[in-house]
């Protein structure tokens, strides 16, 4: 990891302390893997107030000039209980999120905090309790890393 990434991430992590609905979890001492436990408030119709969703960030060595790998997860070696993948017309059941700032629209001025906030606002503004079209076929053929998928961003309303 480059000098820039380390200085930047250590500064970025401090920002999470100010937001109560975003809970940063740092499972290891390394600066390449983080979880953000995310609560959605004020949208009980789709997301029950007690539900917590877990967002996983894997940092690229050239961060912030390369985007981090961001997705929702249910379980992995660092979790103790299974999480749910939130229902959203842009979130696939394997946890991949169709959001342009995570892929082609990434700019180095984005931070982990702003990404988490955008995902959160994407959820709180949503009223459709459904998966995207073609969810099954995408999940059956999707690469593990969502950055390797070819994304088409055609809907900027939701």
């Amino acid at each position, binding site marked *: 990891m480059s000098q*820039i990434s380390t*200085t*930047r991430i250590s*500064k970025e992590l401090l920002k999470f302390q100010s937001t109560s609905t975003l809970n940063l979890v740092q499972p290891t001492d390394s600066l390449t893997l983080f979880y953000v436990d995310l609560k959605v408030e004020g949208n009980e119709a789709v997301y029950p107030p007690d539900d917590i969703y877990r967002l996983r960030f894997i940092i690229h060595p050239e961060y*912030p*000039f390369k985007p981090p790998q961001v997705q929702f997860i249910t379980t992995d070696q660092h979790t103790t209980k299974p999480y749910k993948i939130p229902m959203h017309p842009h979130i696939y059941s394997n946890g991949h999120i169709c959001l342009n*700032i995570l892929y*082609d*629209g*990434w*700019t*180095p*001025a*984005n931070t982990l905090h*702003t990404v988490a906030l955008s995902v959160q606002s994407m959820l709180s503004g949503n009223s459709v309790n459904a998966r995207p079209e073609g969810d099954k076929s995408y999940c059956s053929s999707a690469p593990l890393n969502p950055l390797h998928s070819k994304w088409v961003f055609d809907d900027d309303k939701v």
Partner: protein
Amino acid sequence: MYSQEVSDEELYEDDNDFYDDDSEDDVDDELEFDTEDDYSVNKLNFEDEDDEFKTTLPPRFVHYCYPQKFTRGMLPTNRMKYEPVDYEDIELKLKCKIGNLNKILQIGTDDCTVLLIYYHWNDQKLLEDYTTQDTTEVRRKAGLSDIAGNLETNLIQTAKEGDMCLICCSESTAENPLNVFHLQHCSHSYCIDCYIACVKLAAEQGNLLINCPEPSCKLKIRPTELHQIDAYNTRILEKLEAEKKQENDAIRLRRLTEDQIKVKYQDDFDDSLDSPDSDDDDDDVQKEIKDEDLFNFHERSLKRQRKEKEDKRKKSLYRNYWYHICKNYIMTNRKTFKSCPAADCESSVEYLGFDSSNIVSIDEYITTYIPIVECTNHHRFCYYCNAEDHAPALCFLVKIWVQTCKDESKTLSWLSANTKDCPGCQEPIEKNGGCNHMTCKSCHHEFCWVCMSDWSRHTDNYNCGFARDPRISNDKEKQEKSRASLTKYLHFVQMFDIHRVSLKKDKEFLSKLEMRVQEIQQKVGVSWIEAQFYRECIDILLKARVTLMWSFAFMYYMNPKSKEIPAVQRLQNILSFNVETLSKLFEVTASEYVIQKKSEFLTTASSVKNHQFNMIDKVMELMITDKNLLSGAL
């Protein structure tokens, strides 16, 4: 309309020769010279906006896919008009569009560039929107601020002490002040290194218009802003290079002194020790040349040129920006632009319509003619099917010919013409001689080849008394027919293949020979221009081989009842003879004598060229007059 045509003709074709390289070259040279000239003007007066964005373009040099208005039999031809273009030409054209738009809108070339890119260079639509709709809204959508006008201030500033770049999180201190940059109309400033990285990233992501790095800001970087960043970047790169050079020089200096010491000591030894060393060096050089033998000289120099351009481009963000704009322009205007299919060639061809109003669309054109075009690097290809030159075979003939050659169905028809299935085990059997008493090798079934029934019924080995079943005789007729068509197919496919292989061999052989001639030329001291005839002869030979090769595919599909078959065959034979003569001449002439045999090469080549033209011309005439000519293909 007519006078326009005449002037075009005068410009281009004053000679009756087919593929007249000289006149073509003249036009091309002029063309290249023109663009180069303009380009250098751009570079010199870069700051002067008026010169970069001209409002008039240099005159077009129209090329034709077929060189003459009439065939030798005085039949009028329809020709497709085109112009070979480089990225530089496109850049010039687009900049002219920007200049013209700025003349009308008066909002600065910067804003015009961004607006035009946003509107995919559709200036009509842009003008309409800009004048009828809310101007600020149109500008905002394209990523421009509300204030029009070009940039005049320097946007790179030194940050105050304690300011921090939000991307790399480095702080500006009194000893180490940060250079920061922001767009003219927004206040999102980042340190210049990060800004450069962001611009590079956006270019990698394939964005033509580059956003301000701040996600909430919708402003786009405008050309002059990019130019400022680029100027800074170039300065840094140059500085780095200079440092590196200094370092290298220091190392070399050290080595030199060591060498000098050695030389000093070796002076005492015998001089013969030095000679094997120098021999080794020579061997290395020769090895390098051999590795490159696979390409011919032309392709090699093309590759080198391209690499130089690419290196230059990579260093400059601004040039890279324009490169991608031009590339995108060609890709998005596929109806009028075709990129050259040759590897390592970045040239393209712009379609300019037809020289007569009889033909409206390219789809109609290719039913009778072949739109063979030549790019700025002299690669010949078909405008319609993007394949290499395939005259005199029409595009659809090429398609079915390739399909037929690939198809297994022909193998199957060989089987059906030459074999029968064993009645016992259904294994296909070929009768390669002997009597009609067959014994199957796999199932040992014994049967009669004529009536296919059990051999036990037969007594005479040579006469079958049972072959009177009408069904069987019908089969036989079918078999005869398929056998005849197969023989025909095999003949043409063999001829086609012979010339295809010769073409390949010629290419390999000639590129090696050319290499040798280049060497000799350097040794003997013949000027480059004087040795050019050799290149031209090679070109003529290869082109003629292509024509000869495809003429066999054409013949295969010709209507067997056509009275013109012998005439075409005669032309084919003459062409074939001439091509082989030239090929032989190349083969037997030792590279030392090539220059001396100049006149012999030139006469043979011109005769090849002439017969190649005769061939294509004849086929063209036939295509125009006889609509049923290709009934064999339908």
